[in-house]
């Protein structure tokens, strides 16, 4: 039995500072023969070295597509980056030729996916898959690669790594497969790890194991992490900053502590009131009525307006864009002093955020 402590504070992490990844006005669309899907509609955020940043939202909000676009892994030919830039370590990933992107992938940026069964090759042994990554990027002999693979498996807590190397993915449990995925992702000590719902398919006690492993290893290696999840509990314990996404837009961004202490976008407020909690008193849930918008229609106005209790007239026609909550002029995108920003014309007050509904006359569309 081990006891794990919650995430370390933002400013206590090494290598923090310069942005490692700069995403500006990223636009991603999927064009099929009869429709256009407006998946990501101008997303801007930074990730500094060593930081853990959460991308939170529900199915279809564009959180996964954003990261596939960063990695240039969008399904072709339908998925296209139609605007903006993704600068990783000084290079614009959008403009780089495929061969160079391939170099960066795996070596500098690695990814862990939700379902470890479908992201591991079922007909290759763990050894073949682990050493493939190593040998593709580094000049190592087969023996060196094997030694490193054993080292990696023991690093992620797989017992008897020498014998387990010969196993196939189906011989592992879900949690163990996810450990193998983590070993593969961290094989080359990347500077950025993108973890897309890494624990969603796992049981809660196994989730705790895997999250602790990710936190522990990335802290030790100084790896920056983008954690994509729908689970507000997971981001609360794992991240220093959060971007809340809805229908392809970032609607709230800031320090994790700020957003949970002072949720300021109606969608974030709604999410927090939609989940029952095991701590404290059991409160009635206040669901967000309706459903997310059809993303085959070009977005007009605020995407959340049709479901929003705080909607005002201009929400239907104008997109508010991200603004700092306290109207300060300087916007900090990374680190412990990151500005708390929301995209909202009529944000809930603190009392309204606690109540989960508008308490003022003018804020209520009814």
């Amino acid at each position, binding site marked *: *039995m081990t*006891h*794990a*402590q*919650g*995430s370390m*504070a*933002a*400013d*206590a992490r090494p290598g923090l500072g310069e942005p490692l990844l700069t995403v500006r006005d990223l636009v991603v669309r999927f064009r099929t023969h009869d429709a256009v899907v407006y998946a990501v509609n101008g997303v801007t955020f930074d990730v500094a070295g060593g930081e853990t940043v959460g991308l939170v939202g*529900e*199915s279809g909000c564009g959180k996964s597509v954003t990261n596939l676009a960063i990695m240039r892994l969008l399904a072709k030919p339908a998925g296209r980056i139609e605007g903006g830039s993704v600068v990783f370590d000084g290079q614009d990933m959008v403009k780089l030729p495929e061969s160079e992107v391939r170099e960066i992938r795996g070596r500098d940026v690695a990814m862990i996916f939700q379902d470890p069964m479908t992201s591991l090759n079922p007909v290759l042994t763990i050894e073949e898959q682990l050493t493939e990554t190593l040998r593709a990027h580094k000049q190592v002999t087969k023996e060196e690669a094997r030694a490193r693979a054993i080292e990696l498996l023991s690093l992620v807590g797989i017992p008897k790594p020498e014998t387990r190397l010969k196993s196939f993915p189906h011989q592992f449990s879900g949690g*163990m497969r996810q450990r193998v995925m983590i070993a593969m992702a961290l094989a080359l000590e990347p500077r950025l790890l993108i973890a897309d719902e890494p624990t969603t398919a796992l*049981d*809660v*006690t*196994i*989730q*705790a*194991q895997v*999250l*602790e492993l990710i936190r522990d290893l990335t802290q030790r290696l100084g790896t920056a992490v983008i954690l994509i999840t*729908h689970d507000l*509990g*997971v*981001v*609360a*314990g794992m991240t220093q900053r959060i971007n809340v996404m809805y229908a392809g837009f970032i609607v709230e961004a800031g320090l*994790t*502590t*700020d957003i*949970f*202490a*002072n949720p300021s976008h109606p969608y974030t*407020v709604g*999410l*927090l009131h*939609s*989940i*029952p*909690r*095991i*701590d*404290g*008193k*059991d*409160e*009635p*849930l*206040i*669901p*967000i*009525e309706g*459903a*997310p918008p059809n993303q085959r229609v070009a977005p007009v106005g605020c995407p959340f307006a049709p479901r929003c209790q705080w909607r005002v007239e201009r929400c239907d026609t104008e997109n508010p864009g991200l603004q700092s909550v306290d109207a300060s002029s300087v916007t900090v995108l990374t680190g*412990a002093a990151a500005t*708390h920003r929301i995209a909202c014309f009529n944000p809930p007050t*603190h009392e309204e*955020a*606690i109540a989960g509904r508008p308490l003022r006359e003018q804020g209520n569309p009814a």
Partner: protein
Amino acid sequence: MTITTPISGSAAATAARADGTPLLEVEDLAVWFPITEGIVFEKHVGDVRAVDGVSFSVRRGETLGLVGESGCGKSTTGRAIVRLYKPTRGAIRFDGTDMAGLEGAALRKMRSRMQMVFQDPYASLDPRMNVAGIVAEPMDIHGVGTSAERRERVKELLTTVGLDPNYAIRYPHEFSGGQRQRIGVARALALQPDLIVADEPVSALDVSIQAQIINLLERLQGSFGLTYVFIAHDLSVVRHVSDRIAVMYLGRIVELASSEELHRRPVHPYTVALLSAIPIPDPVREVNRRRIILQGDVPSPVNPPSGCHFHTRCWLRERLGNPERCVAETPVTREIATGHEVACHFAEDVDGSREQRQSTGQGALSTAAAPPAPGSYAPAASSAGSSAAPAGPDSAVPAAPPAPGA
């Protein structure tokens, strides 16, 4: 047979809720699935002991939560209750009748009083039937009403679950996940059942939609006096909807208590570990929380560990110096407090422990009386060092209203 009661909130429903008699009694239920070898001559080589001796009762109008991780037997228990599986041993008494031995027409008749809502709203609706057909099917099977009456009833049911009755002619693919789950609930209500077994009814849904369905189920229980067996892996959801909760591990119930008692005072080491593993959506609490990380995976139900099934992963056993009793002797279910059952030899050692307190974030709560810092922008680090974590109203927006005097 005709439809007699129209759908509406009724006084009978409220009366049923107050009644304390058990609607469902499960006694020593076991469901084993045989493992066979050979193609021509099937040889019985073992059993998957999915459920292995489970006893509980559900009172009329009550919600019993069944919670546990994959493979703990919670879904199998649920399915055995409605007799989708035949029990290997044990009794399932529904309203006084033992379901375990029923067959044919008698079973079918009892089944109309119990319905299921399934997890996957995509797989549990026939894609070739329209909504009217899906919702009316239970009535067709049980020969309830004329076809005109059924049509009317479908419209009523759709309205009840919050769907436009004009959607009756549409097909499942035209609906979102949340709407499909509403259709599944309407179908379950069609025969006016007494008991609904809901197997992970919200797990496949997005957070904002989950809350809609949970509230719908709660509202329906209030209006129709329904009794629920609510099966889920998510303890926070189960706590929210249940009056009492049974925690399962590897085919057995390890702890059973009222929802509040289980969260305030979990006494089985597995329950404590399970609670501590649930992430709390509050960074300030998360940073001060110590979780119990269970080592390894759940053992196979084909060959479960001897004695207490949990002994291979138990943190308490390790602390007590690995007593032999856990391996040798199956713990009997005993009452540690009124209505609070536990199957652990050493439950008293859990009670009052630091692990118990911290599992639900109460460790950080002990200093909640400390003055909160409204609108505090302090990073988590400032509170991480001190034990007096400011768990003030700001950090617990959905959970607690501001303390008086704050």
